[in-house]
């Protein structure tokens, strides 16, 4: 799966906006939204929030976890532990990126948040590399990957699974070669 497709899935996440227009409740195929009243917060999927923001029809309310103090705690925890710690949102990276790209003016300390999330991401990816390396070395047949997000799995996953497949093929061909040595040419 490509990064753009993971982002597409992340756009389903609900975020809170404060609209500056009024509109009755709308009945989408995926559920109902609204009603929208100027100044009253309402939950909408991220794809709609970004679109409304681009048309200057709303202000975005950053998610609760998008806060310097909370993120610092998570980052420190992530650095301290050897395993993956739970993230505040399964799409934390994509949400940060989209919200900061399109609504940086509604998010206090946007630059600090960007750096913190990037730090968390880097720490986690480094851990993922190390564990992938030991997975391959020990020729394991199964691994548990709790708390990893879809984006993290997909940035390294495709490469890892392909590499494992190639190694498997080479290994099984080797075993096959040993059993049928008396091949006539």
């Amino acid at each position, binding site marked *: 799966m490509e990064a753009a497709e993971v982002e597409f899935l992340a756009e389903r996440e609900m975020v809170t906006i404060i609209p500056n227009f009024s509109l009755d409740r709308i009945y989408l*195929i995926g559920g109902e939204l609204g009603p929208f009243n100027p100044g009253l917060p309402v939950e909408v999927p991220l794809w709609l929030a970004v679109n409304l923001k681009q048309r200057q029809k709303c202000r975005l309310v950053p998610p609760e976890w998008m806060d310097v103090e909370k993120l610092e705690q998570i980052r420190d925890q992530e650095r301290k532990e050897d395993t993956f710690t739970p993230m505040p949102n399964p799409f934390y990276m994509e949400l940060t990126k989209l919200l900061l790209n399109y609504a940086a003016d509604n998010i206090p300390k946007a630059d600090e948040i960007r750096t913190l999330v990037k730090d968390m991401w880097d720490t986690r990816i480094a851990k993922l590399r190390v564990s992938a390396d030991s997975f391959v070395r020990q020729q394991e*047949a199964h691994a548990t*990957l709790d708390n990893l997000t879809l984006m993290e799995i997909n940035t390294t996953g495709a490469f890892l699974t392909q590499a494992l497949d190639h190694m498997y093929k080479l290994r099984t061909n080797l075993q096959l070669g040993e059993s049928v040595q008396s091949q006539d040419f």
Partner: protein
Amino acid sequence: MATQCENPVVLTPAQLICSLEQAWMNEKFAPELLESKSEIVECVMEQLEHMEENLKRAKQGDLKISIHRMEVERIRYVLSSYLRCRLRKIEKYFPHILEKEKIRAEGEPSILSPEEFAFAKEYMANTENHLKNVALKHMPPNLQKVDFLKAVPKPNLDSFVFLRVKEKQENIMVMPEHDEQREYVIDLDENSQHLIRYKTIAPLVASGAVQLI
């Protein structure tokens, strides 16, 4: 097609979209062609057509309309990506898929939708024809046949996949990677995530107990 609509579980449109997205991801990550979700596809198509009908009648330039239109386009994207992904697999593995279809017992559900079955058969006939015209008919008579089942690689069921567990599973047998290891059993807890060979958990993907990611 009447039997397919007698789905005992009635889904709300929101759940329907959700199950389409799950089918889409499973299809994207599974090495082999999964069972066709024709009833989901049909119901989603129906919803989309219904909505587009309504939108045509509505006043243009309205904010509401543009929101509806955006949603329709998002769903349409998932739907076509899902169907395209299946067609790609059919083109890649057509002899094996058709062979599976041939030996399928009566009453067992087909993994192909009727349209996909027609596509697969036509693809096979066209490929055969093309090979014949380009090269085979110039060959000596004893070399004029191609066995597609041997010539086209099979889907690699040994490949590794990532998955998230939706319903707890116990006693999943994990085969060793090399001779010094012993096979062992694992439990898959709900909401845990794993990296494992597709072959070990293929039935669980089909039953919907795990979601590929």
